[in-house]
Structures are given as structure tokens and as C-alpha cells.
């Protein structure tokens, strides 16, 4: 049997029915319809339960430098002894605990990488530092849970990546550019910010803006007067580093547009936003004095990370958030894993990276090969954005570090005690037994006294 109704009339009837149903619903619950009315154009909803992604970049350490002695990870191989001179097995320097010894700002330029990498032989770590006139042995120093108890506790509870590479085989400028653009920025032999800024290189924030997704760049001790136009080279190691660590400050369009410039804010704003549950979808954080950049204090850096996580964990946004932090380059320290060379600029050596989220797998070591553009990839996948460059387009991401099948974990503040004080509960049996025996004896004594009538004379 065929339907005699023409298709156009049938479609018209369907539309009419739909309108009728919508009208009835509106009559039944006008408030719901009012709520459903668009108030503002929302950004696309994320593809995962992560509504708030926070990415902090600390400074200058390798994976082996921080976690090389940690069991269960790809750490420092047994018997490691780094030649003082490349190609000569002896003399050599064994990895040692830095402890109370002071650290130095070891050379971490492209040339230092070349010497230390030594075409994949990985035997130039001491020489790469000593050729710069510094004590090359220091490159073989490491920290462990005595120095980094909080980070190690975090690794116990959340996710530690042991194949997370810095994106560039050179210093901070390229690595930070990879972090926000998926490309090195400085493409010539020199690694410097062009006098006119980064020009039209697209950033992840351009993508977010275009998609209507909220973002902010939080900067510790932020000084908005320091941009690529005002900084001087002498300031590279001081406050001028702000322009390197916040590449947006080297973009004319971000500096000159008050709306965009207003999204680069002091770190204090992060605490307020988190407390109110108003974190944007994507937050990038740049440190200042707490960056752990040698010879800075690693403990100060731990305190910064701990404070940021504390605020996130007590934020209403916690249940839909992920916090990733890593280190912008290797800082001259030893790491034993040869970095894959995917192109002319990288990868660089492995860097520590950890992920904290209510969905993060507990005590999980993720060995996926990742780099800073993996964070861009995560943002692009989560909010359905187009890749920025070839690197982030091809990058792996860290979705395996999450377990979205389980409900979000409640937050737990981790301490800086690596081995929390063990609560020893005394054996209760002697306590119960002794009081029970004594009580019984006294009751028996009174009972006997009450029953005996004979007077004492």
C-alpha cells in the first residue's frame, strides 16, 4: 500500500505538529522555555567531561633529574656513568643526589643540546656543561622524593608521564612558542623574539576566540607594561622573561587589543576565578620566581604548584577540570632517553610532566610519546578545534591518562610528607581485659560484703 499524500504536504504536516508540540510544552512550562532561550552564545561543548583545562609551564628540569630514581618508571638505568669526554668511557660521573648542594643554571642552548645528544649517543651531558666553563658533573645530579615529596605524592595519586619530551631541542623561546602555537616561532638559527613580535603565527587562543571558548593566561607577578616592545635583552633572566614565557606579549594583536590583552592577567585572578567557580575553559599559567629555574628553589616551585592545585581542588570547577604541568626545557640536566627527532627543531630531552584531574587514573605512569603540542592536541580534540600546525596535528594526546568511565574522584590535599606518620593503635585487648577483670573483682567484692552479715570484732 502506498501513501497517497504528497511528500511536501507530509513535511508541512510534520512541521505543524512539531510547532504544536512546542507550543503545548511552552504553555505547560514557560519557565523552562525561558531558560532554554539563548542568553549568550555558548562555545562548543567539550567532547570529554573536562570543561576546564589548566596548563602550567615550569622551567628547566629533565625527567631523570626529578623522577629518575622513582620505581616503576623509565628512570636512570643501573650502572649509568657519564663520560667526562664524549667517546671516552673513563673517567665518568655517576648520577648523584644533589641534596643540599646548590644547583647552577646549566647551559641549555641548542649547542649544548647538540653536544649532550651527540647524535643519539647521549654521552655528552658532562661535556656539554663543562665546555661552558661550569662544573659538568652537576649535570648528573638528581633530585628525589626527599627534595620533591609533593610531586612524588602527586605521582602516586595521579598521572606521571615518562615519555613527555620538550618540543624543541633548544631553549625556552622555541619551547614556549610550541606550547601556544605548535610551531617553533623562531625558525632561523638564532633563537630570539623578532623585533616586530611574532606577527601572524596563529595561536591556540586565536582558535579559542574564534570558537567562542573562554580562556585566560595567568601570569605570576604580572607586569602589563613589559611586552615585546618594552623589554630589553638584559631582562631575559629577570622580568623580561615574562615575554618569553607569555608569548602573547610578543604579539601586536594581543597587546593592542584591550579585549584580548585583558585576558592576560595576574595569577591572583586565577585564585579568585577558581574560588568562584569561574575558571575559563582553557587556562595557561606562567610562573615568575617560583619557576624552579636553576638556581631557583625547587621547593618554592612545589609550593606554587601545590597552591594552584589546592585552589583548584576546592573550586566548584574541580569535578570537570584537568591540570597539567611540565617544564619548558631540560635545563642542561641529564636524561637517558634519546629524544625522537621528528623535525629540525625537536624533540628535546624528556621533561617531567604530571596530570591532576578527578578523572586521572590513580598512580598511573603514562608512557605515550608526548610533547607540549600534545596539550594543544588535547584542547583541539576536546573542543573540536582545527590544528594549528603540523606538529600538533600529528601529536599524540593524553586521553589514555583519564578514566572517564568512573565518576570524578573527590579532591584530596596531598602533603609534603613522603611517608606520613603511621598511626599506631595500641593493642586494645589488654585495655579491655584489664578493666573488665578489675571491674568484675570489685563487683564481686561488694557483692560478697553485702551478703556477709558477720561483724568484725
Amino acid at each position, binding site marked *: 500500500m502506498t501513501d497517497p499524500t504528497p511528500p511536501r504536504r507530509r513535511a508541512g504536516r510534520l512541521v505543524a505538529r512539531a510547532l504544536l508540540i512546542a507550543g503545548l510544552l511552552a504553555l505547560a512550562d514557560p519557565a523552562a522555555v525561558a531558560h532554554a532561550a539563548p542568553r549568550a552564545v555558548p562555545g562548543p561543548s567539550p567532547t570529554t567531561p573536562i570543561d576546564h583545562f589548566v596548563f602550567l609551564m615550569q622551567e628547566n628540569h629533565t625527567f631523570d633529574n626529578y623522577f629518575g630514581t622513582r620505581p616503576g618508571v623509565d628512570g636512570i638505568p643501573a650502572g649509568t656513568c657519564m663520560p667526562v669526554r664524549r667517546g671516552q668511557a673513563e673517567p665518568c660521573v655517576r648520577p648523584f643526589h644533589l641534596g643540599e648542594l646548590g644547583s647552577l643554571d646549566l647551559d641549555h642552548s641548542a649547542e649544548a643540546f647538540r653536544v649532550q645528544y651527540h647524535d643519539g649517543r647521549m654521552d655528552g651531558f658532562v661535556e656539554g656543561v663543562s665546555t661552558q666553563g661550569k662544573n659538568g658533573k652537576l649535570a648528573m645530579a638528581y633530585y628525589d622524593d626527599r627534595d620533591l615529596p609533593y610531586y612524588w605524592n602527586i605521582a602516586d595519586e595521579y598521572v606521571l608521564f615518562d615519555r613527555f619530551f620538550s618540543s624543541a631541542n633548544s631553549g625556552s623561546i622555541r619551547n614556549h612558542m610550541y606550547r601556544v602555537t605548535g610551531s617553533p616561532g623562531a625558525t632561523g638559527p638564532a633563537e630570539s623574539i623578532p623585533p616586530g613580535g611574532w606577527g601572524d603565527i596563529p595561536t591556540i587562543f586565536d582558535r579559542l576566540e574564534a570558537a567562542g571558548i573562554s580562556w585566560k593566561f595567568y601570569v605570576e607577578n604580572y607586569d602589563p607594561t613589559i611586552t615585546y616592545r618594552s623589554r630589553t635583552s638584559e631582562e631575559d633572566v629577570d622580568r623580561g622573561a615574562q615575554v618569553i614565557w607569555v608569548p602573547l606579549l610578543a604579539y601586536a594583536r594581543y597587546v593592542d587589543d584591550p579585549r584580548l590583552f585583558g585576558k592576560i592577567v595576574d595569577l591572583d585572578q586565577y*585564585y579568585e576565578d577558581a*574560588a568562584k567557580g569561574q575558571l575559563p575553559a582553557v587556562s595557561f599559567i606562567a610562573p615568575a620566581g617560583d619557576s624552579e629555574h636553576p638556581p631557583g628553589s625547587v621547593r618554592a616551585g612545589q*609550593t606554587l604548584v*601545590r*597552591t594552584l592545585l*589546592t*585552589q583548584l*581542588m*576546592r573550586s566548584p570547577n574541580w569535578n570537570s577540570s584537568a591540570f597539567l604541568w611540565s617544564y619548558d626545557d631540560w635545563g642542561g640536566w641529564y636524561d637517558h632517553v634519546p629524544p625522537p627527532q621528528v623535525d629540525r627543531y625537536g624533540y628535546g630531552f624528556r621533561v617531567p610532566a604530571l596530570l591532576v584531574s578527578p578523572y586521572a587514573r590513580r598512580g598511573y605512569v603514562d608512557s605515550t610519546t608526548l610533547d607540549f603540542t600534545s596539550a594543544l592536541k588535547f584542547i583541539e580534540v576536546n573542543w573540536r578545534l582545527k590544528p594549528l600546525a603540523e606538529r600538533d596535528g600529528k601529536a599524540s594526546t593524553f586521553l589514555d591518562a583519564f578514566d572517564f568511565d568512573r565518576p570524578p574522584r*573527590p*579532591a*584530596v*590535599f*596531598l*602533603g*609534603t610528607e613522603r611517608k606520613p606518620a603511621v*598511626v*599506631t*593503635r*595500641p*593493642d*586494645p585487648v*589488654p*585495655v*579491655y*581485659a*584489664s*578493666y573488665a*577483670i*578489675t*571491674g568484675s*573483682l*570489685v563487683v564481686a*567484692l*561488694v557483692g*560478697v*560484703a*553485702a551478703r*556477709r*552479715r*558477720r*561483724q*568484725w*570484732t
Partner: protein
Amino acid sequence: MSVTRSPVEEVEHDRRVATVVLHAVGSSSEATPDSRNTGRERGWRRWAVPAALVGIAALALFLRVWQLDALGFNSDEAVYAGQAASLAGNPNYTPFFPVFRAHPMLFQTLLSPFFRTGEVDVAGRVVVATLGVATVLAVHLLGARLYGRRVGLVAALFVAVMPYHVIVTRQVLLDGPMVLFATLTLYCLVRFVQGQQVLWYVATGAMLGVTMLTKETSVVMAGGVYAFLALTPMVRRPVRLSVLAVAAMLAVFLTHPVSQALAGRSQTGKSYLVWQLFRRPNHSMGFYAETVPAAMGLLVVAAAVGGLWWLRRHRSWRETLLLSWIAAPVVFFQLWPVKGFQYLLPAAAPVAVLAARALTGMPVPERIRRLLRRADRPRDAGATRAVRAALVAVVALSLLVPSWNAVNRADNATFLAGSGGVPGGREAGRWLAANTPKGSVVLTLGPSMANIIQYYGHRRSYGLSVSPNPLRRNPAYEPLPNPDRWLRNNELQYVVWDSFSAGRSAFFAERLMVLTRRYHGRVVHTEYVDGTDRTGARVPVPVIIIYEVRP
């Protein structure tokens, strides 16, 4: 002016003989005119006393459990309940409350089966309330043994409704159970004096040992026993038997150190004793005079004192015993630098007995009796009984009203240790448990609030006012030597201000607020009680404020 003879006068006491020769209470009552009543009346009386006792016990229980849960634990309650829970292995409390702290563990051991899981507070208080009712019954036994059933009943009624006893036995404190055992000790001593049985003498020592196992400060009651025996030479107490009684006391008390040693601890008690010996006074010398008589009931105290006067001709070893029992804690704790509202509670029972004795035996002026006497029954003693019953009722009512007010005062804004719960404390702790991540560390103004937060919030808490000097702090408390550094290092994530502690220490209150401001304190929760403003209008008064802090 003629007086009516009281039952006291009917008890013989020959002060001239070397040993006390007494008729048993039962036999003395047989000699009263009551014994000449008809069989029907005797039957009625046989049921009247138990019925009255049940009624008194029911009233006592009602006052002790009415709105028992209105306020959460105070600091001491939190500590004792926490110890009991830790002993029971309750995982919510073992990290925060060590099993052994300052006192012996008899009461905590009794409590612990109720604290095995979850958050328990009402059950602990019900246990104490039950022991409080048992004390009321023990007072009846004591009064009846000393002066007859009528005095026993009236004394039990007074204790049942006495605000002092009601308030303390609504809390998980050691003092309520301790007073039960102290009263039983007194009862054993009376039995010894009356019966001259060695076993009662030994039982007195053993029961005093149990009292000390509840709270070791009750050793001062041994001073009461000694004073009584010293003042009453006619009571025979050969040295060898006294040594036996003391040995029984020590043997019972040894349970505490022995159980502690067997369980693996030995130092806690010693440290606490050293601290108690050298700590600074916490109240003025007038503290007890200002608080305790009113809590016992001014009419009760007046009756007890008055009775000693108007029944002075009938003074016997009984009054010496009761006065010795009262004097021991009063003198000791008056001189002791550390004072606590509930410390004089052992005196409540003898005061009640003395007051009952006074009111049931008080002289009634002839003029009043004549007014009440029926014309056709000129020799009827009912008028005297009516006057005395009215006085007993007035005194009982004078106790009942403040007790009723006390148990209904859910928004109590005072903070006298031992006098009740802390408004908002439980709620603040529960808020922290529900709204802060596990592992949060809290800075409170003083250790009292820290205990409450740890009990209800399950969050490690430190009192700012706890001195780093070991001679100046309770050894059970952990000081925070440099709170500023802890805050700077994000080791502390919350600060709790409370009006009770702030009222006691303006210095530390100001210091806490300086730290709170310095570390970006943000109010995240406030607990209020009802108060009144200048116009008398009811307004919410903040009593506890929780701040979120960060470096």
C-alpha cells in the same frame, strides 16, 4: 517553741562508746510510728517508695536526655569520645585522637563499643545520662542508709533535678561517671561504719580505686576518708586493715598503668601530671564561689547549711562523714591552680543528702502548724509533714526550673568548659568534612576548637594559642611553632575563628586575624546563634567563621 522530732533523732548514736553501735536502718524504721500502721498502709508504703524512686529516676532520665543532641560536643567531650572511638578502632578518629592521653581509660573503655563506626555523639551522652540516673539511685541508697528512706528519696530527687548534676551528666565527661563511683565509695564507707565488716572497708578502698580509674584526680576523696576517720576516733580501723583497704585501692588503680604498659604506652600520664603541676591558673580564686552554689541550687546549699545548725543537737558521725566528703574536693580544688566547673561535682551527693536531712527534719514553728492543723485532730502530725513537703517541693522546683532552662538552651552563647556543648561547633566541623578536600589542615584560635574540628570535621587542626613551650601546654596538644611559615608554604588551608576562644584571648584572636588577612583569607562559611541587638530585636550573631587561606 516546740519542735517535731525528725527520724534523725530516732537513730541512736552513743558517742561515748569506743565503737559505733547502730541499729540497722531497717530496724530503726521499724521503731517509727509508721510500723504501727495498718497492714493496708504498710502495703501501700511498700509500693510507694519504689514507685517514687521510679518516678524520680524517670524525671532524672528525662532531664538528662531531653534535647540531648541540640548542641554538639565541646572540646573535652570530643577528646574522650575520640579516645573511645580510637580504642574501638574507628578509622574516622584513630588519626586524630590517640588512645592514651591524660586520664585513665575506664570510662572511655565503657564507651568504646558504641563508637566502633561512624560519627557517634548522642550514644556517648546517653551512656553518661544513664550513669547519671544510676548516681541518683546511689544517692537514694546513701541517704536511706544514713537517715532513712524519706531522706534518701528527697536527696535522690534533689540530685535528679540539680542543674549542676544534670548539666554535667548530659556531657561525655569523666566527672559524671566518677561521681557515681565516688557516691558508691561513700556508701561502702557508711556500710563499713555501720556494720563493722572488714569486707566493706576493703570494698571502700576498691571502690575508691574504681573512682580513680574514672578520673585520677578523685584521689582527693581519699583525703575525705582520712579526715573522717581522723575526726571520728570511735570508728575502729586497725592499721593492718587500713593497709589492706589502701592496698585494694592501689591494686584497682594499677589497672591503668598496667593496661597502658601492656598496650605499649607509658609516658603520657607522667607528662600530663608534670604539666598539671606547673601550669598557670585558668580561673580566679572566686571561681567556685561564683559558679558552683548557684549550679547546686542556692536553696539546697542553704538547707544543707541550715540543717547543720537547726539539727546541731543531733550531730553524729554521719555529718562528719558528709562534711569530710564535701571538704576534700572543695579545699583541694580551691587551692589547685587549675579550676573546672565540674570538679566539685562529688560534693553534690553529700550536699543533697544534708539538704534532704535538713528539710525532712526541720523544726516547724507551732504557729504555722496551728494554722494548718485541723480543729478536730489537734495532735495530727500531718501539718508538719505538709510544711516539710511544701519546702521540699519549693526547693525541688527551684532546681527544676534552671535545669529545664539549661537543657532547653540550645543557643547557649557561653563557653564555660564543662558547662555544655559549643553552639555551631559540630555544624562547623561537619561543614568542613563535607566541603573541604580530605587532607585539609585547619588553624583554629585555640586547642578547644581544634578538638571539635578534628572530631566532627576529621581534619587535622592546630590551635594557634598552644604554646611551643612544653611547660606551658597540655602535652596532648601539638603546637605550631611557626604558623606564618606554615601558611606561606600552603601547609594550612583553612582558618577557623570562634567567638568563644576570641573572648578568652584577645591577643591570639588579633594574631589569627592578622594571619588571615595576610594570607588572603576569604570567608567560606559562618555559623550563627540567635542574639539580640541594642533594641532587643533578635539578630543572628556569628560565632564561628571559616576562612579559606592561601599563600
